[in-house]
């Protein structure tokens, strides 16, 4: 099905306005795009995190679709139970149509504390879509570093002092790790490229088994960026190739259209310094300028980009 803006605009918003996520937060943009891609209403399980606390403050709810929250580390396990029970109903012929099951987790609930449950659910092959909205730190609890925080970034637990300039470790390649679970569908998405995002969500929902979508979700509060630049940053992440867009169906990697220009014309790939300069969390790399760190990050970006190109058969 073609992704048609006119058609999409007619579909009911399943995440209502009036939630209390920060202005400029990319998480609800990602969620609304994901929900636009779904036919009908999905059952959602949501890890503890920004999205959860800001959309379900009792006695109100922003969700116009069945939604459950139970804990931080277990959205995948919770989704397993939901999906398995729906299978029971389906087997008994008690369902007109099996609803889709979607788990939303932040980077903490995916890269770190939620990883065991995620890995288990994918090994067992439950039929659900896991969406990671990655704002690259524990934003809900006050900007602490996670396994998804990029190298060099300031957080409240990777401070920028004389001895240590921000986070010293590299970001975990979570989407590739999920591919190695033999997942039938894995993709990376950016809310700046909504057509690509919606197409991928539809593919993920269509497969029989677990699918994983990794969305970059800029956070003005934690990234120290103006609230009107989140979508631009989500675009810049793709343009600098620090967050290439790709998909992998049954082990076959394919680079996605928004990332293609940088293969055909590598000179169009923007330098990582543009991305770093735009964010307050990397400010310490410029006062005074720390070219050795910036260069180190650039090299890492190039290396990771090379891995994707190689897997997509483009080198």
């Amino acid at each position, binding site marked *: 099905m073609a992704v048609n803006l006119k058609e999409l605009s007619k579909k009911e918003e399943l995440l209502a306005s009036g939630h209390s996520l920060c202005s400029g937060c990319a998480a609800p943009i990602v969620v609304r795009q994901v929900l636009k891609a779904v036919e009908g209403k999905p059952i959602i399980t949501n890890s503890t995190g920004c999205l959860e606390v800001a959309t379900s*403050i*009792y006695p109100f709810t922003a969700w116009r679709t069945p939604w*459950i929250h*139970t804990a931080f580390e*277990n959205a995948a396990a919770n989704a397993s139970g939901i999906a*398995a029970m729906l299978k029971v109903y389906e087997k008994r012929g008690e369902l007109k149509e099996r609803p889709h099951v979607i788990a939303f987790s932040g980077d903490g609930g995916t890269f770190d504390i939620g990883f065991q449950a995620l890995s288990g659910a994918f090994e*067992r092959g439950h039929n659900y879509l896991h969406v990671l909205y990655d704002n690259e730190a524990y934003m809900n609890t006050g900007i602490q570093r996670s396994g998804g925080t990029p190298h060099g970034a300031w957080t409240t637990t990777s401070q920028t002092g004389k001895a240590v300039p921000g986070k010293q470790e590299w970001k975990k390649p979570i989407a590739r790790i999920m591919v190695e679970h033999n997942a039938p569908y894995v993709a990376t998405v950016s809310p700046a490229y909504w057509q690509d995002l919606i197409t991928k969500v539809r593919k993920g929902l269509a497969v029989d088994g677990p699918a994983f979508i990794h969305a970059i979700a800029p956070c003005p509060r934690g990234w120290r960026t103006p609230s009107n630049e989140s979508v631009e940053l989500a675009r810049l992440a793709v343009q600098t190739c620090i967050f290439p867009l790709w998909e992998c169906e049954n082990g076959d990697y394919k680079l996605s259209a928004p990332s293609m220009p940088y293969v055909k014309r590598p000179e169009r790939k923007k330098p990582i310094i543009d991305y770093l300069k735009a964010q307050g969390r990397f400010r310490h790399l410029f006062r005074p300028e720390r070219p050795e760190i910036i260069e180190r990050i650039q090299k890492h970006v190039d290396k990771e980009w090379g891995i994707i190109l190689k897997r997509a058969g483009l080198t």
Partner: protein
Amino acid sequence: MSVTQKVEGLNGDEAVAYAVKQCNVDLVAAYPITPQTIIVEKLSEYVSNGEVDLEFVTVESEHSAMSACIGAAAVGGRIFTATASAGLALMHEMNYVAASHRLPIVMAVCNRALSGPINIHVDHSDSMGERDSSWLQIFSENPQEVYDNMIQAYRIAEDSSVQLPCMVLLDGFVVSHTMQDVAVLSDEVVNEFVGRRKLPFINIMGKSVPYKLDVENPLTMGPLALYDYYFEHKRQQEEAMKNAKDVIVKMNDEFARLTGRKIGDGLIQPHRMEDADMALICLGSTAGTTRTVVNELRRKGVRVGLVKVRSFRPFPAREIIDAVKGVKAVGVLDRSGAYGAVGGPLFNEIRSTLYDCDERPFVVDYIYGLGGRDMHPTLIKEVYDDLERIVKSGTVKQTLKFVGVR
């Protein structure tokens, strides 16, 4: 007139699995954490042989087991899981969530000691860690009671006035691995007794909808509730616990009409308490050994009695006060420690309860059997002797004692 039953040789684990097979359970999610019980292995065998039609989810941890159970129960399923010891401790976070989501999941817990040192044998330290989680806790003395408690558990947990999860507890090895003749009902009789899970209806913006995740009637479950609403949610759980007391009593009677078997009034089971001067109060399999000792001492003319607590949550305070009326000294047998506390968890409940007696008896805590240390009849007799000395001397020098420890 009770229905026809057949006798099967079952250990406690098998009695659980046998009951689950008959209770129209939709889904089981479980994990074989050390120490594993054979409950889920037996269930897996039933599933493989096509003897039961349920979805069996073999998760990667006990935390995920309870998380999956919560998800499946939230879409309306009747759910079972089993665990023990460290597994129950790993579930701790999710146990509170299951209860606050008001999901009537049933879980068999083979009581086993918590690490460390690591140990696989019986004591009650694991389930005592969950005593404030708002799960019902029904203790079983032997495999027969395990079977009977399991079948009643779904009716109690799913009662519209309760809607709380329920643990059925059985002592590790002593009950879980010990075979007994167990009178079992036919599948049809149990199917009819437990029926299918009936969902409660709740009012959402003027519309009555079933309490489940349902695309027809979207609900938000597990929202954030801060100081303005959290307290009210928790207060309702206390009400449900209170209601559960009546339901447990009612179910005990209904089950007795069906099978001819009854465990006291459902909450406690007193033995030779009519004119007792000294009484012991305990949980689980130790009640069986204690009963034997009571009978022996009674033959010698010693006025001793026993109160077995079947329902630890909800706690039957009023019933215990009535049962120990006239008793001069009460000994509490605690199979778990409470380091730095006044006494073990059962003792603290009992002594607090007995504060409301018109004539308060002496109350002494006897910690016993940690890590599976045997509670031999001679040790129980020593405890009764100790109580007799207290009654004779009219003083208690020490309220916390340890039995059978070097």
